């Protein structure tokens, strides 16, 4: 498998799921369909790549574009000493994506963070609650339509 890069390997293995592969600024990037996420993630973790570490998981709000949200996963392979960025788009009307908690343990908190700040629902997450904001907080602060200076004090501020 060494003669093939992981990107070629992925597009061969998942012809339906992989939309695009690219190298941007030295980072390897693969854009996939959100339906194939769990399969591809499992393949990456246990397959020849051995991407055993979920480095990071976040979301970007491309307000005005359709689909609006983009989930960004950064995987790392200790074996190959290689990072891989997996991206998938989510439309605002269907903000649901499968949870990766069954594959990586830190996905729990990372997905709670994204749920908190962007409002993405992770299907199969055992305990999807806000992580940073308090219960009863309205809206999702990292969305582009959430105003920078909107205040929602938990207790009434002194006049």
């Amino acid at each position, binding site marked *: 498998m060494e003669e093939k890069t992981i990107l070629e390997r992925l597009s061969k293995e998942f012809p339906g799921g992989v939309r695009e592969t690219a190298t941007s600024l030295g980072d390897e990037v693969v854009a996939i369909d959100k339906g194939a996420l769990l399969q591809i993630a499992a393949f990456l973790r246990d397959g020849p790549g051995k991407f055993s*570490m979920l480095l*990071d998981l976040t979301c970007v709000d491309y307000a005005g574009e359709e689909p609006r949200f983009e989930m960004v996963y950064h995987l790392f392979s200790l074996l190959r*000493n290689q990072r891989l*960025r997996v991206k998938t788009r989510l439309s605002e009307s269907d903000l649901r994506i499968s949870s990766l908690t069954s594959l990586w343990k830190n996905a729990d*908190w*990372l997905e709670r963070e994204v749920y908190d700040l962007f409002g993405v629902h992770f299907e199969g997450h055992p305990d999807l*609650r806000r992580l940073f904001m308090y219960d009863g907080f309205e809206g999702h*602060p990292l969305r582009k339509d959430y105003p920078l200076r909107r205040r929602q004090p938990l207790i009434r501020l002194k006049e």
Partner: protein
Amino acid sequence: MPTRIQKQARQDTMLLNMGPSHPAMHGTIRIMLELDGERIVNSEVEVGYLHRGFEKTCEYRTYFSLLPYTDRLNYVSPLINNLGYVMTVEKMLGVEVPERAQFIRVLMSELSRISDHLTCLAAMAMECGAFTVFLYKMKAREFLWDVIEQTTGARMTTSYIRIGGVRADLHPGFDTVLKKAVEETRSVLKDVHGLLDKNKIFLNRTRDVAVISRDDAVSFGWTGPCLRSTGVSYDVRKAHPYLVYDRLKWEVPLGERGDNYDRYLVRMKEMEQSLRIIEQAAVRLPKSSRAFIAAGLPPAQAIRESRRRRVRTDIALSPNLEGSEGSRYPNILASGKGFVVPPKEETYTTIEGLIDHFKFFMRGHGLRPPKGEAYFAVEGGNGELGFYIVSDGTDRPYRLHLRAPCFHIVSALEQLIRGRYVADVIPTFGSMNMIGGELDR
């Protein structure tokens, strides 16, 4: 609110609240414990008490002006945060940094790393009852922070490492101060080894307490000294070398068991390696071509002089603007126009310099990385400190995300303390080096 545990708790157990304002929960974190006697049946960790909306704020700041916010992430090693952010933007812009600046960056980040480890272990030791160790380590940290303060002008809010280089050159007496700090730190490390390594109280609280397996540590996304304490050799400085780390000789210390004691020991050994790096970097630091300018003129007088004589090469600004003279630039800042703040004496004395200045600071101008995205990581005190920046071609980041190393480490806390005693929470939490500013962002 820790709601999950309240729902799940058994009838015969007790719920105990630790934090967010608990002396051992440094960094405001709340742990709700479900106790059966002294034993922890279950727990729930609640974070977010220090959430300041760092990522949201950054979307509204220019690439240049958001640097001070990065100081406040891991406030014990702000220089490494500066470095991580700056190098990500440099990756997008494709800026080449002069060698001297690279060595200075290595020096500064290793000094910060030592102060980070010292702080973590000092607090951990103090909470286990070793107050002497705390004082010794704080003493060593003071010497390191003296070096940092004399170089950057601040102890914690440094904003020293800038896009394209560093803010100012090293001061003339740098070598002496550094040598003193290295000596003091070495002797403190020796003392601490003597005080703790075979100390029965310390061993009882840390040996085989909160053991994490290799697979679990990887699955939780642990990096840095905590991951290395389980025996996984992953250090960003070795795996993806940046700056001049690959030109220096040093090793990656590893642990075996992945318990609290190994996390302590790995940090202790890492500090020794950092001292090695500092000593080598200080020797190999390329010489500055700039002679130190002793006296300078206040800006107003410099402007007057320039009107009279139209010569700007011999105008030196007053020392309080040190670092902005053009003669320093070849060694510590990239030469490309538009990447760095234009030299102040040109801004004050020539119209071209003034235009350059405005082009740099005006809204919509200045640093504008090309459209795209980049992830870059450096080895922070706690592990892989990564920045993910999405640029839409304007002068502000469209999205900036920080991969905080201790976020992943603290997310394993619930699993680590399950089945242990209440007293074990303290050294376990201490060994993780949770930093609120970085975790909550």
